[in-house]
């Protein structure tokens, strides 16, 4: 198996770009990725592009050729859709393609445009990631689905709203120095506690914002990097994906995410590492409870113990195992189809030492990224390692 490396990463600022077309956002991310990689566009052999609700937001299907044009690449281009894990699966396929020796250079990432829609339409659009017949028609919203998981978690393992408020406060603090983050503003635990309810027990600061943005990565083979003198010190050492029943109610347990367990197991096995080796993690905290479920699925905490990790200072920037140093989806923002790529971009910078929060993990060698779709009916996990 060939070694896949992240040669370059590019992001737009996450936030409101209400007047910018999706193709323009992705073009910016791709341009930055090429600049960061020092790889010429003409060497790109495939484009793997993630997007979730472009048909709704921009009346635009068939986005991959459009994004190939925007990025200035001429090669097979495919759109990947896996709800909020769309870019995660796009990156995973890029890694697999390079690792299999089918290509030396793949451009991967994603884009989502959301703020041009009224909030009600975004709510409706995001709910499309749930089972329409048996969940959406029964009143399940995206926050509502995670609220169902939070209630089930508290019931099974304990924990309370204040634990989740600590997750929100931590991630907002982490976003402060991140120039790409949507909310660079501190939120205190009390402020999070006092915010209005969205879907109880989740309140406003338990939820990620509505975000426009794009991410792009240049993934290359180690051989290509060596031959072309490309500096690509971070390897994607393992990738894994899992699938679960679509509707939350059909899952064996309402407060666990076995699709992510499966993805993590496969990614760790491929990388030859385990949870104890992880120095830093970027996980899918679309809601605060989701960070808890993610860290448990990744094996970073025992089932039922992840909820207090932020409150106890374990996952804070100066803790033993910083989680979401980027600010997470929570504060950095969640342009749905771009998120999985942005997590790998952030983790790459954290491991390379050129992230504004790298100072908190100066000796980090192993990072893990966790990207989830829907209520984790889809999950993708990547293990990144400093290779040289």
């Amino acid at each position: 198996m060939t070694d896949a490396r992240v040669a370059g990463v590019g992001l737009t600022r996450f936030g409101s770009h209400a007047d910018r077309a999706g193709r323009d956002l992705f073009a910016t991310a791709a341009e930055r990725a090429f600049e960061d990689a020092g790889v010429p566009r003409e060497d790109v052999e495939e484009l793997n592009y993630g997007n979730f609700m472009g048909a709704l937001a921009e009346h635009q299907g068939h986005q991959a050729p459009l994004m190939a044009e925007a990025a200035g690449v001429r090669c097979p281009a495919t759109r990947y859709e896996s709800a909020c894990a769309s870019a995660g699966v796009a990156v995973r396929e890029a890694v697999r393609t390079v690792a299999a020796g089918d290509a030396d250079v793949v451009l991967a990432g994603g884009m989502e445009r959301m703020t041009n829609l009224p909030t009600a339409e975004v709510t409706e659009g995001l709910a499309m990631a749930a089972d329409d017949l048996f969940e959406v028609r029964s009143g399940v919203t995206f926050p509502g689905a995670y609220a169902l998981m939070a209630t089930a978690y508290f019931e099974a393992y304990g924990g309370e709203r204040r634990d989740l408020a600590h997750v929100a406060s931590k991630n907002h603090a982490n976003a402060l120095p991140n120039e790409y983050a949507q909310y660079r503003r501190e939120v205190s635990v009390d402020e999070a506690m006092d915010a209005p309810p969205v879907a109880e027990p989740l309140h406003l600061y338990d939820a990620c914002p509505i975000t426009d943005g794009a991410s792009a990565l240049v993934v290359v083979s180690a051989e290509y990097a060596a031959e072309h003198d490309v500096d690509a010190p971070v390897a994607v050492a393992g990738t894994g994906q899992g699938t679960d029943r679509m509707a939350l109610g059909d899952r064996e347990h309402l407060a666990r995410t076995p699709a992510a367990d499966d993805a993590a197991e496969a990614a760790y096995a491929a990388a030859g590492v385990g949870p104890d080796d992880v120095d830093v993690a970027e996980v899918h905290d679309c809601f605060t409870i989701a960070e808890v479920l993610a860290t448990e699925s990744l094996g970073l905490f025992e089932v039922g113990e992840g909820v207090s990790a932020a409150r106890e200072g374990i996952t804070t920037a100066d803790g033993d195992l910083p989680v979401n140093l980027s600010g997470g989806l929570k504060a950095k923002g969640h342009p749905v189809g771009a998120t999985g790529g942005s997590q790998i971009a952030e983790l790459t910078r954290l491991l390379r030492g050129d992230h504004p929060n790298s100072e908190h993990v100066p000796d980090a060698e192993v990072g893990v990224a966790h990207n989830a779709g829907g209520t984790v009916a889809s999950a993708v996990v990547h293990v990144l390692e400093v290779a040289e």
Partner: protein
Amino acid sequence: MSDDGAGDDGDAGSDGGDADGTGPTPTPVSDAGYDEWLDALAAGEGYALVCPDGHGSLPPRRICPDCGSDALSREPLAETGRVETFSVVHVPSPRFADDAPYVTAVVDLGPVRATGVLRGVEPEGDAVEVGLSVTAGVEERATDGEPLVAFRPDDGE
């Protein structure tokens, strides 16, 4: 299960054309299997599709999603169910605009769980608890009158 014969591809018939010639009209979406299930639930005859190993699922199904068995039979839902988890939704989707705040709940109904709106309780976090015994039926969405899986606290009658 439906009595579909070999070779049936599930074609429900109408293609939704404007038969009366007055121009295009929105065609109500129908979902064979699901619609029938909802009608049965409304009539107090809700069912699940159950395989020989006892895995329950909801229609339309051709195989058991747990084990792949195609020997699915209809089994009645339990008369009362248990609330396994719930949320009080304050920010609804447009189709539930006039319903909010409302309680959404996942309820264990024997062979399967179902998700629906819990009515007959105050839509407040303190007013509901996991373990509450409920009955299942079909009621109208306040926003537009569309049918909806609804639960009510079991009054023991």
